[in-house]
């Protein structure tokens, strides 16, 4: 092959996306092709050969995975488990796909996982909560029973924030607070989960990078009126009132009756005119007042109701002001996982 052609191949290999397994290592690629062709013997040989060569991290992962698959296909259980153990140490979160791999391979992988101590799948659900009244869950998986400690590293802080003993799925609720109880400053932090089985068996996860930001709580708006309640009119127009004409008839009638009881007319009838004029005038005025639209009158019930509404509204706004004062003093923490 000419130098120019070789150079072209190298250039193409470096610029094209890694869509093929083991593209950087031809031996490993050969091993993959042999495995795909069900030539397990050649696949095994090629994989061993590849592992003797300098490989990058990703190729080593692929190599041990291929080794485990091949040994599993060849029914070499112990070798398969050993290969999977190496794979687990290199990539704890990598698992064979249940849809693409046979159950036998999956069980060998699970067996390997149970024989080594690793911490895998350390995750954090991004969330937001008030400082001092919430937490964010940090989840992880420990392959064997071990003492698990969670360590937090950041600006001005490097300490163990949780210890427990467990195997399998674990969870730590992180309150994002400093030892003195105050919320952690905004910034980037690392969470490392370490499992310790004995003084000689310990595994620490890759750091989980999280970002903590501070925010302010929204304050509550002041109310102009209580929801669902309306003030009632304090002056109401009562229904037509016949009281004026009734009173005029009563007074006028009694006075006229008393007059005619006292005055027998023997001294002339001159006094009668005045009596009738005044009594008639009173009745006419009373009738006119009864027929006109009544004057609006204050409604005691509505006045008391409105007064109560205003007191409740004032009290509610005072409560809102106090709540807002508390809200302004509180910190809204937002924790996100940085990938």
């Amino acid at each position: 092959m000419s130098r120019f052609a070789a150079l072209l191949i190298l250039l193409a290999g470096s610029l094209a996306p890694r869509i093929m397994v083991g593209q950087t290592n031809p031996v490993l690629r050969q091993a993959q092709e042999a495995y795909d062709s069900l030539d397990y013997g050649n696949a095994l040989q090629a994989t061993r050969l590849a592992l003797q060569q300098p490989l990058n991290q990703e190729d080593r992962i692929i190599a041990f995975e291929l080794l485990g698959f091949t040994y599993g296909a060849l029914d070499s259980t112990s070798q398969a488990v050993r290969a999977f153990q190496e794979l687990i140490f290199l990539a704890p979160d990598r698992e064979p796909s249940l849809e693409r791999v046979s159950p036998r391979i999956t069980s060998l992988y699970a067996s390997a996982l149970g024989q080594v101590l690793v911490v895998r799948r350390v995750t954090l659900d991004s969330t937001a909560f008030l400082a001092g009244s919430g937490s964010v869950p940090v989840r992880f998986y420990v392959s064997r029973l071990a003492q698990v400690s969670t360590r937090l590293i950041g600006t001005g802080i490097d300490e163990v924030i949780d210890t427990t003993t467990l195997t399998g799925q674990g969870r730590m609720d992180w309150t994002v607070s400093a030892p003195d109880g105050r919320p952690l400053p905004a910034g980037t932090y690392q969470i490392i989960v370490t499992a310790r089985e004995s003084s000689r068996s310990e595994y620490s996860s890759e750091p989980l990078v999280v970002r903590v930001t501070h925010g302010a709580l929204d304050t509550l708006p002041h109310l102009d009126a209580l929801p669902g309640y309306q003030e009632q009119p304090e002056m109401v127009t009562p229904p037509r009132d016949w009281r004026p004409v009734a009173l005029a008839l009563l007074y006028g009638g009694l006075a006229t009756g008393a007059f005619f009881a006292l005055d027998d007319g023997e001294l002339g009838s001159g006094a009668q005119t005045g009596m009738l004029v005044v009594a008639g005038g009173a009745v006419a005025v009373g009738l006119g007042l009864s027929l006109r639209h009544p004057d609006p009158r204050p409604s005691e019930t509505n006045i008391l109701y409105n007064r109560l509404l205003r007191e409740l509204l004032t009290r509610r706004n005072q409560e809102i002001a106090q709540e807002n004062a508390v809200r302004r003093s509180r910190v809204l923490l937002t924790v996100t996982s940085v990938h």
Partner: protein
Amino acid sequence: MCLLVATLARAQRIEVSAGAVAVTNSEVDSTRQARGPGLGIDARMDRGRWRFEVQGVTASLDADFTVQPDYAVHQLVASASYFWEPGIRAVGGIERRFVSPDFAGQEVGLVRLGLGAETRLSSLAGIEARADWLPVAWFSGGGGGGFSLGLGLGLRVGSATGRVHGLLEYSYERIDRQVNGVPSPIRFSVTRLGLGTRL
């Protein structure tokens, strides 16, 4: 004096009113009935449960028959009322009536005791009534008062808190005078239409 009145006005309620009056006076029998127009003034002061009132009337009366000459009558009434319930009062007063020329009619002096009631018909008008017993009567021509009664009916049109109001009032007295055992009754009435104001 004006300053004194103004100062007093601020301490209690004082009203004055004036208007036209129609007076009838009849003595002994219907042939001696005289009637005519005139003027009347009234001043009233309300202080706490008390009311003090002074009224003056002057009128020129024309007789219906020649047997009775025409004459002028002048009346002064001073009374005091005590409200023991809102709108209900006991009234006591004195009344003096003068006639001119002399002997054209009886001059009368009376003591009046009575009861009064008043109420608001609405925010724009009020009505009041009065019934009096006249226990003591004096006459220029002598004789005694007998059992004498009086009554009154009044209408006031105007807001209770307003400064100006109109009034239409009627007062009536029946005095069963007897001279040497001979009945000589007297009937006296005043109808008044006027305007009042609150100081």
